[in-house]
Structures are given as structure tokens and as C-alpha cells.
């Protein structure tokens, strides 16, 4: 089985993210639990980053959109 590889850490490839305003913003379940604003930029990142179990297109699409 192909193991997913992450070149750079973003909220959009973190295991805590779900789609929110696709592709620019994601919902962070960790921040929500911590009573912080859970809506963050897809291309942002924090110290609580952890790997996602499967790859998605969030980072690719957000990067494309950013130009």
C-alpha cells in the first residue's frame, strides 16, 4: 500500500481538518475543542499538526487558487 507523503505541513493536509470554504479555508476540530476559532486558512499551519490518514486535494487546490 502506497504511503502518503507530505512535503510541507499545512492545515489542509493535517489530520484535524475538514472542508469548510473549499479550498481556501478548513475547519479544525482540534481548535474547536480548544475553544479557538476553528476556521483557518488551508495553507496555514500550527504546532498541533498531525498526519492525515488519506490524501486530499485541499492544499493543491488552495495553492492553485492562490496563484
Amino acid at each position: 500500500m502506497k504511503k502518503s507523503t507530505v512535503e510541507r505541513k499545512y492545515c489542509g493536509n493535517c489530520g484535524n481538518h475538514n472542508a469548510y470554504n473549499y479550498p481556501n479555508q478548513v475547519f479544525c476540530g482540534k481548535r474547536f475543542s480548544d475553544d479557538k476559532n476553528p476556521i483557518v486558512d488551508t495553507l496555514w499551519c500550527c504546532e498541533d499538526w498531525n498526519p492525515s490518514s488519506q490524501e486530499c486535494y485541499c492544499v493543491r487546490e488552495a495553492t492553485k487558487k492562490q496563484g
Partner: protein
Amino acid sequence: MERTDFLGEPVKHVRIPSKLSVDELIQQFKNSSSFGAGRLSTACDIYERMVRDEDCTIFLALAGAVVPAGMRSLIADMIRERLIDVVVSTGANMVHDAIEALGGHHYKGHWLVDDYTLYKYHIYRIYDVFVPEEDFVKLDYKLASIFDEIAAENNGKSLASNDFSRELGKRLHDQDSILRAAYEAQVPLFLPAVRDSEFGFAHWLHASRKNVGQVLALDAFKDVPEIVGLCRRSARNGMMVIGGGVPRNTVQSAALASKKGMDYAVIITMDRPEPGGLSGSTLEETVSWGKVKSQADKVMLIADATIVFPMIAASVIERLTGGFKRVTNGERRKLAVEEPE
């Protein structure tokens, strides 16, 4: 029985003139009275009798993805027209109802698609309907604050599932919403398996915050006396079942526990009886439990509910001409504790 008893009424063949209303087509099916078409025409007749029976409480059991499939407004309209007295639904159908009430959508898709590509785009598939993940997430986010509000207002008191759905309906302001229609029409809407849906995850989210105040408490057992009471207090009871599962069992069990048995029953399912599951169990099997009376007006339609349920509704609504207004069940009204805002 004599031989001639078996050969009483010849099949009349379907004839389609240039224009035909839904009920006219159903009448053609009645003339042929064969197979699925015959059962569909029988279902329309039984539902019409339920609606015209002023002493009958009509239960609608909803399972399967009927809201994603586009039947939300139809059901909301039927609730407002009092063609349904009590709704028992999966949590999922009301989740999808709430998604649309908050501005989300279901999209026409296709069953032949690369599901891993959908996954990577955060899109969920329900056969040939697509739902973007963000619509669920936005619902969860909104529900977390709604749950805070409901919990605070009730000061930790646990709610029955129909109290919970009424609280949700009060806070949704979309006229096409089933939850909103039930709230406004004061129609009880039970969600016996509410946890087994996005409502469960939204609750988890609501309760998971570090500084959460009151946590919303639901008590599924509180539903039992309420729904059994509805059956018991009604002179006659009827059920329209879409799918099966927990909603069908909840309605039938209320008829059993109240020692009433259903007087009318229409079941629409694609399930089979041989594996022994409730969703495919025949109405005859249901009679053995006392859930449906042996002399009940009943039919089981092996059909896709997304096709036949709107046809049943259209046919019967067409028959209810001349200013017909259904007299609502007085016992049901007693359940209402709040006036709509």
C-alpha cells in the same frame, strides 16, 4: 370456493390518452389491478381512506435517503396540510433537512464515479447524489451552538427526541424544512435513533469543548410513553412506511404496546422477508405480533419510494378536491406545548 369465484373480474388494459393526470393513471392501474401497478393503486386507496378517516392518526415512518433524493418539500407540505399526524424518522433524514435549511445543497451526481477522487475533493456520495463535506461541517458548527442554547434553556433536563426536533424546528426558518413544518404544524417528530446520524457527531463536537457549559441531554426512553400514548388515545391508527428500519419498528411497536394494532398500513420497501430483518418483513408477519390488525386495510409495495411515494401523494391530493380540509386529531393537539414563533 367455486371455480367461478376465481374468475370474477377480467384485467382491463391500460389506456393512455394524450393527457393523463397522476390519479387518472392510478385509476388505469386499478383497472388492470396487476402486480406492482395494482398494489400502487391499492396503496393510494388505503392512504385516501386514512386521510378521510377523522379518527385516524397517521404515522409516517421515514428511513432511507428520502431527503437527499428530493422529497423534502413534499413531506413538509404534507405535514402542513395535516396529511400526516406524526413523523418518525432516521436522524439522517433530518440532518439532510437541516443542511438544506442552513443553505446547503444536495447535488445531482452519478453512481459511476471514482469514489476516491470524491474523497480527495471532500464530497460524499449517496448513490447518485453528491453532498459537499462543508455542508455537514457548517451544520455541525451551527448545531454545536444550537445545542448550547437548548441545553442552557432546559437547564440540564433530558429531552425526548420529539422535544429535540421541536427545538431544532423552532430555530430553522426555512419553509421547505420538514423540521420547521412539524414545529409550525405541531406535529410530533420522533428521532428514535438520533445518535446514529450527524446529530451524534454534532453533539460530540458540542460536548468536546474545554469550556462547554450545559451539555445537551437526550433520553430515548422518554419517547416510548409519548408515542405509545398517541396510539392509545387514537380511535384508529394508520402508518405510511418508507423503507423500514428503526422508524418502522418504532411505529409498529407503539401499536403493539398500546394494544391497538394498526388499522391501516402502507409499506414501501425494496427489502425481502427471507433474511428475517424487519425492513422486509411482510404485513402478514406483522399481524402475528399484533402490530397490525388482521383485518387492517393494508398493502406492501415492493418499489422505489422515490417513484411511488410522490405518486401516492399526488393521486390522493388530486382526489381531495372540493375544499377538503382534514380534521386534525384532537389528541395530537394536546401534545403541543408551545405556539410557533
